[in-house]
């Protein structure tokens, strides 16, 4: 079978190297002198996070400064990454509270299910992302650290207002 090469007939002005080169150089020069740059100067200049941004967790507290969590066990149940560790406890009055509550931020996939499922609106994913650490152990946030977070929390997607208006 003969080799079939499909060649498009094109006008010379489209196939000329010299003219294309000059045109390209004009374009690059225009960009060179254009003061508009697209780079974000990250540590100084930060992106505005969406209100629905799901980042570092935060545990909300009641008026007494105690974590709102009632150790119902729903969030460790729903967590697809299995990164929430909960040991429930109960005080004299029969109120349940978490003895141990730890989230491994390193394993978390920030799906936000924990926030959605929480009946007490205790655990939240937050609008925050700068949570790097030097060791893996540093990523395991205990209850104290989760309640100490101050960043705004995520507004979850609301089916009544799908576009967040």
């Amino acid at each position, binding site marked *: *079978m*003969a*080799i079939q*090469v*499909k*060649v498009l007939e094109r006008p*010379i002005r489209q*196939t*000329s*190297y*010299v*003219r294309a*080169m000059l045109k*390209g*150089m004009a*374009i*690059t*020069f225009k*960009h*060179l*002198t*254009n003061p*508009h*740059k*697209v*780079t974000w*100067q990250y540590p100084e200049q930060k992106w505005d996070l969406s209100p629905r941004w799901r980042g570092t967790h935060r545990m909300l507290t009641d008026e007494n400064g105690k974590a709102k969590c009632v150790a119902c066990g729903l969030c460790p149940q729903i967590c697809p990454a299995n990164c929430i560790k909960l040991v429930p406890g109960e005080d004299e009055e029969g109120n349940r509270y978490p003895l141990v509550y730890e989230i491994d931020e390193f394993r978390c996939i920030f799906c936000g299910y924990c926030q959605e499922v929480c009946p007490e609106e205790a655990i939240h994913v937050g609008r925050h992302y700068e949570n790097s650490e030097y060791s893996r152990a540093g990523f395991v946030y205990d209850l104290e650290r989760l309640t100490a977070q101050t960043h705004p929390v995520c507004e979850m997607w609301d089916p009544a207002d799908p576009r967040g208006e």
Partner: protein
Amino acid sequence: MNMCAALMLFQHAYDPQAPVHGAPWLWFSIIKILVVFTVLMVTIAYLTLAERKISAWIQDRHGPNRVGPRGLAQPLADGLKNIMKEETYPSAAYSPLFILAPVMSFIPALITFAVIPFAAPLPTRWGLVDMSIADLPVGFLYILAIASLGVYGIVLAGWSSNNKYALLGGLRSSAQMVSYEVSMGLAVVSVLLLSGNVSLSSIVSSQVKTGWYFFPLLIGFFLFLVAAFAETNRLPFDLPEAESELIAGYHTEYSSMKFSMFFIAEYSNMTTASALLTTLFFGGWAVPFWTTVNTAPWHWWKTVITLVCFMLKTGFFLFLYMWIRWTLPRFRYDQLMSVGWKVMLPIALAYLVVMAGAVLALDAAGIAPTARLGGFLPTYWTLLGVLNIVLAVLVFVVLDRGRLVSPASARVGPVELAELRAMSTRRPAPVQGD
């Protein structure tokens, strides 16, 4: 009497407008070597920054701006990083040549700069000091000779790495350099026709007298420009290190300072090529339209002004190098070869013949190179320039119609089609499937 003679000798020896000689010559040479070497290395360091900045700006980015004010200390950080990196020695590499290769590309790249006059001569108490490290009478021939040594570094690096990509890079580099050196040499012969001398300082001084050569040798200038790009392995001719095909080409296996040396060699080659373009076609250190500065008697401020002028011109060509690098994509290997041998070489040869004829005709017509048309435009310069523009238009039209670079899918004419058919009938039919 003796004293008097000695005094006269002394005075004669140290005439500020006569070339310096004897022991002061030696001292000045050593100082010049040190200064030029240092300035060149610093320039190269900052060229890497300039390259990154220009590439960033062209791509609407900021470029390095964290180390020092506006990123100006970036070359220091890069240098430090390269020194701290681990030197790797691939076990399959042939060590002696593997170590020698960076040196082989580094040294020729630096010593080519030795003959380039970078400013007007400086008068001192001991005599007139040439502002080039060594004003060799064979100036340009020296550059051609040394520049072709540079390819050994690359070929040896490619071969001794014992790596197929490096070897391919080295092979390509040698083929490319050999092909383009021919047209480069031929393009320069036209300069020599006008200047009548190969020494770079006399090429500059004859340009001061008769006008810069880029106009009367327009095509020669473009040929030289393209060949210079190819010789320095810069885009669009960077096939030896084509990242997309060859990883990093000949320096794939190199790390740390040895890699840096190839880098320095590339940038100093670029600097030398830009300085050569300036010297051969743009009047070297001569300041345009200011004859007082460009001619004797010399004075230190003339040296300073011409030095600045030389730097500006060289800087422009360095910028052009980067501008083109960030504009044009790389040639395909067959395009590279066909541009070199089928376009550049015939044009360079024909151009040489035409220019030699034109110069001969002008000489026969009794027009002196310094004669001026209407007291302002140099006759010689103008006539040759007009001839060149006509030729350039012709060359442009022909190349443009014939497509200077063949497109990715070349047209298969009826003759080729018949040949291909005949070939396919002679070949055993390809086995279908596996």
